[in-house]
């Protein structure tokens, strides 16, 4: 979760996942999380039972805890966070 004054706009993760669920199912599961606008998953390496993928997630206020939980529920492991884009939270008029 982003801190009060800032939001996470984009993260790129290096993830090791089982072959099933496929990257299509993984992408649609991640895209269903609130504030996530785009999910791009690229397969990097395929093994006998696992697959290394790069997951790029874009949104207006990405909740990292929700992303982590969703990835772990699918049986995958986050190896590293390779890129993060953060920005100041836009002030809304009340």
């Amino acid at each position, binding site marked *: 979760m982003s801190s009060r004054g800032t939001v996470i706009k984009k993260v790129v993760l290096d993830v090791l996942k089982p072959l099933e669920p496929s990257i299509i199912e993984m992408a649609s599961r991640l895209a269903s999380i609130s504030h996530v606008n785009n999910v791009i998953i690229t397969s990097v390496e395929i093994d006998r039972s696992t697959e290394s993928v790069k997951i790029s997630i874009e949104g207006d206020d990405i909740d990292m805890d929700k992303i982590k939980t969703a990835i772990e529920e*699918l*049986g995958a492991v986050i190896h590293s966070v390779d890129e993060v884009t953060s920005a100041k939270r836009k002030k809304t008029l009340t």
Partner: protein
Amino acid sequence: MSSIFERILSFLRKFQNYMKISKVTAISRRYFVMNSFDGAMVALGIVLGSYTTEITDPRIIIGIGMGAGLAMFFSGFTGAYITERAERLREYKELEHNLLKSLDETIHKKALEIASLWVAIIDGGSPVVFLLIILSPFFFSILNLVSLGVAYALSILITFLALFLLGVFIGRISKENLIISGIKMLAAGLSVFAISLLIGGL
């Protein structure tokens, strides 16, 4: 109303996902064909055996059928559950080893349990369903809706039809000629029929 429909739909989607993850679709299809064939053959055996030994009380035939069905269900269910769970667990542990993490709180653990149970239900349930369908004319005979002779004839006809349809189903899987595949399965039933009558006539 729509929420119930949505829940059912969501359950079916999850169920389909579990089947895909645990890769049991082909196995359960195989078990379904193999055990339905077993069930149909056992039913045919009971019907022909009853006919050749001149059993005239449909209750006896139903009783024998129920006993055989129950035994087939428990044998199929427990056997398939234990062996399939062991197979799935092996793959599951291998995956845990490759990922270097526990998969206990993941979709994979649920898939393991549900898929093993599903395969066991198919394995134990399919012969019983076929057995009950084939013996169903004897239920009508108990209710005096059909005579015993008609029940025997109907039961044998249903068996042949069931075997033919199973053959067609196999033909659809292998993308072969459906009629030829159906006839192959039917030939097995006809052989049992001929041999039983021959032995019964001696």
